[in-house]
């Protein structure tokens, strides 16, 4: 029954393979033992997750669905459904916050921002030359655009109308170096003046010496100077090499349309005729 005729030479030839097998088994055992440490196990988690996604994350490969494009459509539908779920949460939170804010404003008797009325226009031309960064919108005075109107898109503040025609408006983008927008941090409340940088990010100047922005917080218009309404989204602040820079949110949503809303109008205070103030005895006026 036992195998006969084994030569010593064969045994010697196979010995390296036995050694290799032993090394492999030892390495596998060492790998298993090493994973008893949570730090080492967590090191392999991304790999496992990725491979697991590839192996078991899909619903199987359907050639017909792939050819007809149904796979892509279904993937898009799943993405949109996920987005709708996220947005539903945000909507619920927004409704809740709006109700609270309404109550607070009522308690404080606060004058809120007037509702925006604006003109939506298509961006008909963009100027990305060496001079001022501007865009041209196909709505002007005839459509109700006002001088100095503030331009917005889905992402937030785009710029300000600097040239108004009958049927067109030229908008100076906030990414331009010559643009100046008073802004503030949404959370920190730190005020600064924003202007466009040469690298596509916004630069901040005239910041207070002691206060700092919070990394990643949203930057909103502060309405100082009266050129822009308060609270328009400008972007997010990032610390780049020790400097605070702003990633413009309008750049993420370039749908080709802008809404131009009138600039805020702050009524000048009425002049009241000065009347002599008669001092009362209780104030202890020197005679």
């Amino acid at each position, binding site marked *: 029954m036992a195998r006969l005729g084994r030569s010593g030479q064969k045994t010697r030839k196979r010995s390296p393979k036995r050694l290799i*097998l032993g090394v*492999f088994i030892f390495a596998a055992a060492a790998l*298993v033992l090493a994973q008893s440490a949570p730090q080492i196990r967590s090191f392999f988690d991304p790999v496992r997750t990725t491979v697991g996604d590839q192996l078991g994350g899909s619903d199987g490969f359907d050639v017909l669905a792939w050819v007809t494009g149904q796979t892509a459509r279904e993937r898009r539908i799943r993405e949109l459904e996920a987005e709708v779920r996220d947005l539903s949460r945000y909507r619920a939170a927004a409704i809740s916050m709006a109700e609270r804010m309404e109550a607070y404003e009522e308690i404080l008797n606060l004058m809120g921002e007037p509702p925006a009325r604006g003109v939506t226009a298509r961006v008909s031309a963009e100027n990305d030359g060496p001079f001022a960064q501007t865009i041209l919108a196909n709505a002007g005075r005839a459509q109700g655009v006002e001088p100095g109107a503030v331009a917005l898109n889905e992402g937030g503040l785009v710029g300000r109308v600097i040239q108004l025609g009958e049927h067109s408006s030229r908008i100076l983008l906030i990414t331009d170096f010559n643009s100046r927008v008073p802004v503030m941090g949404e959370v920190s409340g730190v005020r600064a003046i924003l202007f466009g940088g040469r690298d596509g990010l916004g630069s901040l100047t005239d910041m207070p010496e002691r206060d700092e922005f919070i990394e990643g917080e949203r930057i909103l218009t502060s309405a100082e100077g009266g050129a822009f309404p308060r609270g328009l989204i400008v972007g997010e602040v990032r610390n780049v090499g020790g400097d605070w820079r702003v990633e413009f949110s309008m750049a993420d949503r370039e749908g080709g349309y802008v809404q131009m809303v009138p600039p805020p109008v702050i009524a000048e205070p009425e002049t009241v005729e000065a009347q002599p103030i008669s001092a009362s005895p209780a104030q202890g006026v020197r005679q």
Partner: protein
Amino acid sequence: MPASSPRKKKSLWSQTGPTPRLLFGAFVIATIGLLGLTPKEFFGLSIAWPYAALWGAVGWGRVGLSVRPMLLLIMFGLIQDVTFHAPLGCFVIVNLVCYGASAMIADMFDVMNEPLIAILSPVLLFSGAFLVLWLIASTLEDHPVRAVPLMASLLTTGIIYAVGQKIFDLGRAPGEGVGQAT
């Protein structure tokens, strides 16, 4: 007298070399393994899916040790670790131990020509592999894991191997080197 008797025609598989056989066996293992990721129920009955890599470990080990089967078994073992959510290396150990044991039995006995050994050795090897797997799993999980699903898979693995063991025969005599196949 000329040889007028008709020669027995050799099958395509018998003329195939060890490398194509190894690749085909690996393809079968991968296919069965991938099919195992899909739902395995027919008419409400759950099927115990075989551990296909063990077929390769037992079959390829019958001709002695070689590096390429080892690498394939390591690869299959790692994939099994991921799919079964086991710590990486568990199934590698099982596959390689089974492969080494198969080679050792083939080195000690004539597994090709002795019917009793030819039947008993796979039974022992599969049982040993599942025992090692159960021990590793129980040790790592800190409690004795369920043995019934493993037994069911052991049966499925053994029965299918008995039917299709030729697929995992590399076509060499045990101990025969590469290029010496007859």
